[in-house]
């Protein structure tokens, strides 16, 4: 499968006052055409920032300090801001976490669509835009008559459908969903996830699914990338990650999910807390909490190492296998 998005050595930092937070550090990752890539990590792991970077939405106080991002062969980092803006929303669309706050409270739903459609196609008439909106919304189970309503008149689940509709209406090739169901209850969550699955097939989309929920990943993703403290810890096909996680963090993450079939008396947790992004510890970011940490982990940053077909992990425990970077 060819790559749709290529991220190479990307670093993003946020500068506020005297402190600089390194949100993303030297991330190399690719998204292949037609796949669903699950991007997993705790809060602060950098997964959302990565998503924004691909959208070109990193603005001051955020800065991309190094690396390249390519979309469909086009270099996003050195694109003019106007070109980038037109690409955004047309070829790549984003679905946000909180449907309650993602829509403009004083704009009708229909107007959200019309404005959006006309921003990318100045020739589109209001009529045409309106019918495009109604078609998409019908696909999602929202009757056309509701196009003149305001966001506050919809429930959370319906608003998220509207967001999905907005993401689809211009026919993008990639959708980045940033925790699309975190703010919804489980029943609605199931509906939205099913929706995404169906739409992906129907419209031949590629999907980056950003979440902290391993359950969603298990259900939806083809491949999984695990992030920790702004770095990629492990990337592997979904089944592989669940059956045979290589990185200590991934292992700990999976271990901490309670198993409904086993009678656990004590919940497994990962001791300690995520590192500070403004003052990260030297060496491997996970070493303070890693049960397998040794001397080298405290001193050097592990590079990603190939661990099997389509799989890699950044851990010194996996030394003895050829380093990935030498092929570049």
């Amino acid at each position: 499968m060819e790559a749709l998005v290529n991220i190479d050595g990307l670093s993003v930092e946020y500068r506020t006052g005297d402190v600089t937070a390194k949100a993303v550090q030297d991330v190399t990752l690719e998204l292949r055409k037609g796949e669903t890539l699950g991007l997993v990590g705790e809060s602060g792991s950098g997964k959302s920032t990565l998503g924004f970077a691909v959208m070109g939405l990193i603005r001051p106080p955020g800065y991309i300090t190094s690396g390249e991002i390519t979309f469909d062969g086009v270099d996003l980092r050195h694109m003019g801001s106007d070109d980038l803006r037109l690409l955004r929303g047309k070829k790549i669309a984003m679905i946000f976490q909180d449907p309650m706050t993602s829509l403009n409270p004083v704009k009708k739903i229909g107007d959200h669509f019309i404005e959006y459609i006309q921003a990318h196609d100045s020739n589109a008439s209001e009529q045409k835009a309106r019918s495009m909106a109604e078609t998409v919304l019908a696909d999602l189970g929202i009757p056309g008559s509701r196009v003149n309503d305001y966001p506050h008149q919809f429930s959370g689940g319906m608003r998220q459908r509207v967001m999905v509709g907005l993401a689809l209406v211009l026919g993008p090739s990639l959708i980045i969903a940033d925790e699309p169901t975190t703010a919804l209850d489980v029943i609605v969550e199931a509906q939205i996830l099913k929706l995404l699955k169906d739409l992906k097939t129907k419209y031949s989309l590629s999907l980056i699914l950003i979440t902290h929920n391993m359950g969603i990943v298990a259900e939806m993703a083809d491949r999984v990338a695990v992030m920790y403290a702004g770095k990629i810890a492990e990337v592997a096909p979904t089944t592989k990650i669940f059956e045979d996680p290589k990185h200590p963090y991934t292992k700990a993450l999976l271990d901490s999910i309670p198993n409904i079939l086993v009678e656990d008396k004590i919940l497994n947790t990962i001791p300690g807390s995520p590192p500070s992004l403004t003052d990260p510890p030297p060496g491997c970011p996970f070493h303070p909490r890693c049960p397998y940490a040794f001397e080298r982990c405290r001193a050097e940053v592990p590079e990603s190492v190939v661990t099997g077909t389509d799989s890699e992990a950044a851990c010194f425990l996996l030394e003895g296998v050829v380093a990935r970077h030498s092929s570049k």
Partner: protein
Amino acid sequence: MIMILLSIVFIVMRVLPGNPVLLRFEKNANPALIAGFTHQLGLDRPLYVQYFDYLWGLLHGNFGTSMAGDFEPVGPEILSRFPATLELTFYAFIVAVAVGVFVGAFGARKGGAPDEGVKVFGILIYAFPVFFLGMILQLVFGIWIHLLPVTGRLSAGIQPTALSIGGVQYQTGIYTLDSLLSGNLTEFIDAVKHLILPATALGLVISGVFVRMTRANMMETMRSDFVTAARARGLKEKTVVYSYALRNAMLPIVTIMGLQFAILLSGAILTETEFSILGLGTYLVDRINFRDYTAVQGTVVFLALLITTVSLVVDILYAYLDPRVRL
């Protein structure tokens, strides 16, 4: 709430001082004269009678009787002075909102040093005594540079005109409006010229609040999800800033406009005095100097009613602007 306002005025002006007529005259004035005055003004009746009379009279547009000389009703005089004040506050308000929103939004968007400047500007301009600012403007633009007139509403020799329809004169007393309606361009330009300095002085001072509020609201709104989502859809930055961020940031500001109007009126009194504009402000001060307490009472009542009306209009306006409130 109107009732409470009106009652407060009544209590302060009528109940607390006892007999206002006594205040007007010197201590050793002729008692018969005082008694006569008191009777003429109906001030010798029991308080509760006066109170009901006061309220009843207001319902009919009766704002009391003047204590000066010939016991003229105060109402017509108030109405004749009102347009000048209305005109001044209207234009000052426009200046205040325009400056406030523009500068506030500017600071919120730019951040850094310009933003600090905007913040300080907001505090500084509001701390300015409006009459002092007026004086500085008069000095600079009227006296050192002979650009604009410094007092009054019209230059000598220019008469206010009115719209005539079928021989009947319709005159609002608002010169900028009347002159446009009657097609008299000379008068219009003259009236506008006279309004520039006072409206700017008053408007600038009041803008301080709007600057700070707009800035704070904009900063918060720019960080909200729907703004990021709008950018993610590839909308032009201009659209995002105005149609999404500013439009929402402005809503809470509308809610304070009623309150600001009251402050505007206070400032108008001082501005009118400074620029010698014959409006309600100067009328009020004038009547106080003449110790015409019933007229003062009438004027204050009128102002209270005015503020209440404006607050009501603002509430309706807000419902129109925020769809979440409408239903």
